[in-house]
């Protein structure tokens, strides 16, 4: 990285006798191979430890209600004869505030798709303007957008809700559309920031060449910039989609009536109301996680990239 970092390497050399280390002795080699073995064991132990809670919930979700209640899920491993998908069938019909859980699953889909796409579409236009259009105060304005990354969304919940429930907001857009707007607002700084980083780093000569050929901004944006930005758009979409899918707070505040709430909120109510109905909680929990898990397993590369980039989200 820099010289200061490499400089710290030299004092190490004074600590040991070089003659010993250039050719490791027998005992050193034993220790080292042991170290490797122990390390390997530790990694797999940790990986197992990390998996057990999720695995436990999954195994429980495919056991009969009576079995879940009376003994631990680990008994299934030695006796997997009692496997059933009843819990899944039952949980989708379980009513929460008068609607089956499947209703809330579809609510989540309704919230997550527009909630992810709207800010990205609008952000892409803005990112293009900040990268390739010339106007006074552009850099100052962009710095201002960056500064907004600092604002925790909690700062905006109460005033935004007042606006949404106030006289200037149309009734036709009550309920789930408020959650879309809220997510679009909260996602705006990060979308502009990440997309500008990407779009701004596209080769200027290509853009200039298109301009010289007489292409306008809209043509360059749709024909050139968007197709080149597909990897960035994909990572950002996945990040924003999962963020909205997993969100509880924004939906709880803005969705209004209980029947507009997403799966996370319905499951939370279930934890409160039916804390003892573990057969429903296990299956419901998995229904809620299934989409993130599929995204994670199938698009892991994009997922990692999106997560790393999005980790600065306010």
């Amino acid at each position, binding site marked *: 990285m820099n010289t200061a970092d490499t400089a710290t*390497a030299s004092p*190490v*050399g004074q*600590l*040991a*006798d070089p003659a010993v*280390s250039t050719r490791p002795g027998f005992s050193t080699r034993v220790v080292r191979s042991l170290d490797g073995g122990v390390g*390997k064991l530790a*990694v797999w132990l*940790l*990986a197992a430890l*990390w*998996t*057990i*809670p*999720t695995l436990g*919930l999954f195994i429980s979700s495919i056991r009969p209600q009576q079995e879940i209640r009376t003994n*631990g899920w680990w008994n299934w491993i030695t006796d997997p004869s009692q496997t059933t998908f009843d819990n899944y069938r039952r949980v989708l019909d379980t009513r929460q505030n008068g609607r089956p859980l499947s*209703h809330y699953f*579809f609510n989540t889909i*309704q919230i997550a798709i527009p909630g992810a796409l709207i800010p990205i579409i609008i*952000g892409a*236009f*803005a990112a293009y*303007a900040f990268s390739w*259009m010339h*106007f006074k105060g552009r850099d100052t304005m962009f710095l201002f957008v960056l500064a907004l990354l*600092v*604002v*925790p969304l*909690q*700062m*905006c919940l*109460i*005033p*935004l809700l007042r606006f949404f429930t106030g006289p200037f907001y149309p009734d036709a857009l009550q309920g789930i*559309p408020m959650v879309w*707007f809220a997510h679009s*607002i*909260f996602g*705006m*700084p990060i979308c502009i920031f990440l997309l500008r980083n990407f779009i701004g780093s596209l080769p200027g000569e290509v853009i200039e060449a298109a301009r010289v050929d007489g292409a*306008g*901004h809209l043509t360059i944006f749709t024909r050139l910039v968007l197709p080149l930005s597909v990897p960035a758009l994909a990572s950002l979409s996945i990040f924003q989609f999962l963020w909205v899918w*997993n969100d*509880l*707070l924004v939906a*709880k505040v803005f969705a209004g009536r209980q029947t507009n709430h997403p799966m*996370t909120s319905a499951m939370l109510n279930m934890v*409160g109301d039916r804390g003892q109905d*573990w057969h429903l*909680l296990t299956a*419901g*929990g998995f229904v*809620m*996680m299934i989409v*993130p898990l599929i995204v994670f397993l199938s698009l892991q590369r994009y997922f*990692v990239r999106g997560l790393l980039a999005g*980790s*600065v989200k306010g």
Partner: protein
Amino acid sequence: MIDILPSLLKAGAGVGALLLVMVGLYGLSRLLPDRWRERAQTGVFLFPALVLLLGLVIPAILNLRYSFDNRNGVFSGLTNYKHIFTDRESRIVLRNTLWWALFVTVVSTSVGILIARLADGLRGEPIAKALIFLPTAISMVGAGIIWNFVYSPSDFGLLNSLWRLLPGDQGTQYFLQDRTFFGLRSSWIPGLNSFYIMVVVIWIQAGFATVVMSAALKGVPSDLVEAAKIDGATERQAFFRVVLPYVRGTVITVATTTVITVLKIFDIIQTMGRGGLFDTSTVANEMYRQAFPQNNKGLGSAWAVILFVLVLPIVFVNSWNQRRMREGN
């Protein structure tokens, strides 16, 4: 399945209409003289984003103003802030949040470094890392349900079953209701139940730390490590004195990111701490609880400002570090 179509169509129609208006205005702008055309087109590209950004700026300013109001919306000076720093329950919230930020960050960053180091170059490394990384994909509500199951006092509770294996007559443990720290109830240290919930967030964040650190470790030039070893450094010395200082920037990134996430922790307190009962509340959870269930918007706003003030210095450290890393490369 049919239910969701009207709603998605509504969203699609909305976005479509917006795009149509933008394209229409853009088309009109081409009739303008050169000098004005570029400005008009910039306006078209930026306008929707600026409207949404105003939806962030104006509320944030209003929130600051509301934080001086009392429960009935009447200006009452610094009352809310005084309450936050003097009320016994509020101080529990602040205490918990500081412990959360410290404990979860230190442990999950260290665990991340440890796993990244141990797994480096191992056969099956991607699988091991994916298993540890998996919890980052699921929601905090989901994670809460998974771990409620682990901590459950019932027969199927994993920890209680292990606990009963210990010799002697072991009573059932109510892990998530234990507000003492090994029997001690101090105003400086959270109850064990808070730590049990922190474990869950460590479980989530360690995966993030592992993946980021693992990428950084692979970027350390091997000749640097070799040189240190030739100079007589042991494996351990080489790691702590050469490798770790080399990836210092990444460690700071992971730590600051984790602190920011943890300061905003909300869902997990809702799911595992029953919304902050048994002394488990944190700042973000308290903000919600006061503003909505308690319907005290003034106090809720004040908690939001506290959260903002806590996050601010961390974000500065983070961006200072990012800039330093870019310049270093």
